[in-house]
C-alpha cells in the first residue's frame, strides 16, 4: 500500500478501521523524506522520527479508545516556518530569527494538534513570506518535486513541495498575495486561502496584517475543506478574527453545481498569459459548464492597478511589522556594534536578506512624511475601489474562475534577475488579499514539459462553500491521474 500517496482523509479512515497504524504512516513519511529531502530542501526544521513516533503512539491510543475521531487524526503534517510552534525553532526563513524558539503555538497549530494531526517539521519559505519562488530563504532554495531545475513557487514553497513529494499528507501555508495558491499551482496540489479573518492569525508572524491568512495545502479538495474546518473559527486572541457560524466547509463537498454562475474575467486571459495555461484553464471551465454551471465572460477592470496597490500596502505593512526585529529581546543580535542605534542597524542590516530589506525600504518610503499621502493613502483608496469592483462582480456571479499564474514554475535563478517581472506574476492572486476574498487553486493540467498548471476559483467574502463545491465537483469529474501524475 502506497500510504503517502493517499489523502489525509483516506489515511485517517484506514487508521480507524485498523488497516494501518499511525506508526506505519510516520515511518513511510520519513522514508520519503530520507529519499528526497536532501535534493528538495523542503524543511528548515525536520523533527526527529522518534519524536514523531512518540506523538503518534499517543494519538493511536486515543483513536483506539474512540476518543479521537477527527477526520485527520494520525496523519503527518508540515507547518510553514512563519507559524509559531511552541518550543520549536521558528525562523520565517530568516537569519534574524535563526535561534528563535516561541513560547507558544499559533492557534491554527493548537487546533490541528487537538485534532490529532502529527507535526513532523517546519517548512522552508521565502524570507518573511516576501517572494514568489522560495529562493530568498536564509536556509537555502527549495526545489520543485516535478522538476528539480525549477522553483516550487513561493512563499509557501516548502509546504507545497512537501505535500507534492508525499513527505506529509497536508501542510499549512500562509497567503498574503498568493503565497498558498501560486506554489500549489506550481506543485500540482490544492491550496486554499480563506476569507480574511476566518483563520486566527494568533501565532502567525505578520507580514501584511490586513492581507495575511493561514490556509491548508493538500492532495485534494476534500482534505483542504476538512483541514480548513478544523483550523477556522473565532479566536479572541486575534482582534481581526471574524465570528463565523458557517465553518462546516465539508458540507459543501457536493458534485452538484447546477445553475451556479461562473464569471470568467477577460482581463485574466489577455496578453502575458502562457498559451498552454490559457487552454488548460478554459478546458477546466468547460468541464464545469458540462456539469451544469452557467459560464459567462465579462470585463473585470482595474486589473492593471492590482499590483501597484498590493505592493505599496504590503511593503508598508511589512516595514512596520518587521520593525520589531531589532536584536533586543530575541533573535539574532550583531556581535559588534557601537551603541544602541548602531546595534539596531547592524543587526537588521546583517539579519535581513536582500529582498526583505528592499521591501522594508519601499514600505518605509511609502509611509514617510511627505510621501504618505501620495503613496500609502493613495493605495488604500485604490484598495477601496478594487473591493467595490469585486462587490459588484459578485452580485452577478457566484464565483470567478481564472488562472493562478501567467507561467508554470520558472527555472531556478530566473525570477530574481527581474524582480519587477516577478512581482507582475502575482497579477491573478493579489486581488483576493486586497479584497479579503476566499480563493482556491486546483490542478487542471500540465504543460508540455510536464509542469503542473493550476486553476483559481475565487468567491465573495465568506463564500468558501461555493468555491469548495465547484472545486470538488471539478475534481470528481476529471481523471486526476491525467491532471496530477
Amino acid at each position, binding site marked *: 500500500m502506497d500510504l503517502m500517496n493517499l489523502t489525509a482523509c483516506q489515511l485517517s479512515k484506514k487508521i480507524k478501521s485498523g488497516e494501518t497504524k499511525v506508526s506505519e504512516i510516520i515511518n513511510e513519511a520519513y522514508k520519503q523524506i530520507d529519499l528526497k529531502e536532501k535534493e528538495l530542501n523542503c524543511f528548515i526544521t525536520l523533527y526527529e522520527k522518534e519524536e514523531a513516533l512518540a506523538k503518534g503512539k499517543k494519538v493511536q491510543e486515543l483513536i483506539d479508545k474512540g476518543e479521537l475521531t477527527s477526520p485527520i487524526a494520525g496523519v503527518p503534517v508540515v507547518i510553514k516556518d512563519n507559524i509559531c510552534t511552541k*518550543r520549536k525553532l521558528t525562523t520565517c526563513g530568516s537569519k534574524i530569527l535563526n*535561534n*528563535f*524558539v516561541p*513560547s*507558544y503555538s499559533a492557534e491554527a497549530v493548537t487546533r490541528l494538534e487537538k485534532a490529532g494531526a502529527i507535526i513532523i517539521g517546519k517548512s522552508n519559505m521565502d524570507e518573511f513570506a516576501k517572494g514568489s519562488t522560495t529562493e530568498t530563504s536564509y536556509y537555502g532554495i527549495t526545489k520543485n518535486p516535478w522538476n528539480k531545475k525549477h522553483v516550487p513557487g513561493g512563499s509557501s514553497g516548502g509546504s507545497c513541495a512537501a505535500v507534492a513529494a508525499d513527505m506529509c499528507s497536508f501542510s499549512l501555508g500562509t497567503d498574503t498575495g498568493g503565497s498558498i495558491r501560486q506554489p500549489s499551482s506550481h506543485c500540482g496540489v490544492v491550496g486554499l486561502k480563506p476569507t*480574511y479573518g476566518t483563520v486566527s492569525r494568533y501565532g502567525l508572524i505578520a507580514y501584511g496584517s*490586513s492581507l495575511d491568512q493561514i490556509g491548508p495545502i493538500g492532495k485534494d479538495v476534500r482534505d483542504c475543506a476538512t483541514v480548513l474546518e478544523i483550523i477556522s473559527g473565532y479566536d*479572541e486572541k486575534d*482582534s*481581526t478574527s471574524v465570528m463565523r457560524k458557517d465553518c462546516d466547509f465539508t458540507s459543501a463537498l457536493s458534485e452538484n453545481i447546477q445553475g451556479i454562475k461562473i464569471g470568467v474575467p477577460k482581463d485574466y486571459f489577455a496578453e502575458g498569459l502562457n498559451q498552454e495555461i490559457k487552454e488548460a484553464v478554459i478546458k477546466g471551465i468547460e468541464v464545469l459548464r458540462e456539469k451544469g454551471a452557467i459560464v459567462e465572460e465579462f470585463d473585470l477592470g482595474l486589473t492593471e*492597478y492590482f*499590483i*501597484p496597490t498590493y*505592493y*505599496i500596502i504590503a511593503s508598508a505593512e511589512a516595514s512596520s511589522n518587521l*520593525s520589531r526585529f*531589532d536584536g*533586543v*529581546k*530575541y*533573535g539574532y*543580535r550583531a556581535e559588534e556594534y557601537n*551603541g*544602541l*542605534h*548602531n*546595534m*539596531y*542597524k*547592524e543587526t*537588521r*542590516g*546583517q539579519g*535581513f536578506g*536582500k529582498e526583505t*530589506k*528592499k521591501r*522594508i*525600504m*519601499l514600505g*518605509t*518610503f511609502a509611509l*514617510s512624511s511627505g510621501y504618505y499621502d*501620495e*503613496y500609502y*493613502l*493613495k*493605495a*488604500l*483608496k*485604490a*484598495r*477601496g*475601489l478594487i*473591493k467595490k469592483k469585486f462587490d459588484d462582480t459578485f452580485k452577478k456571479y457566484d464565483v470567478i474562475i481564472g488562472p493562478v499564474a501567467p507561467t508554470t514554475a520558472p527555472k531556478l535563478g530566473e525570477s530574481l534577475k527581474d*524582480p*519587477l517581472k516577478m512581482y507582475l506574476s502575482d497579477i491573478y492572486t493579489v486581488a483576493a488579499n486586497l479584497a*479579503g476574498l476566499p480563493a482556491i487553486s486546483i490542478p487542471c493540467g500540465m504543460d508540455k514539459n510536464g509542469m503542473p498548471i493550476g486553476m483559481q476559483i475565487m468567491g465573495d*467574502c465568506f463564500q468558501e462553500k461555493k468555491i469548495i463545491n465547484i472545486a470538488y465537483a471539478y475534481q470528481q469529474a476529471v481523471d486526476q491521474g491525467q491532471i496530477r501524475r
Partner: protein
Amino acid sequence: MADKINEKIIEDMAVLAKLKLSKDEIEETKKDMIKMLEYVDKLKELDTENEEPMYQVFSKNNVFRDDVVKNKDDREDILANAPERENDTIVVPKTY
C-alpha cells in the same frame, strides 16, 4: 517622483528603517526603488477623490477584552530567547 530618488533619500530611509546598507546595497536599492516607483506611479491614473482609504477589509474598531491574565507562566521560555541575559533580565546596550 521616481526620478527624484537619489542617494540622500535612500540614506534617509535607511535611517528611518534602522538598516545598515553597504555602498553597493544603497546603489542597488536606489535602482530598484526607481523602477518600483515608476511602476506604482500608475496609481495616479485612478480617480480616488471621493474614496475613503480602506485600511482593512472588515472595519472592526476597538476590539476589547477584559484585562485578565490568561497565559501560564512562560517566563523561562521567553528569557531563553534573550541574546544576552543576566539572571532574569535581558542585557542591552545603554540607551543614553
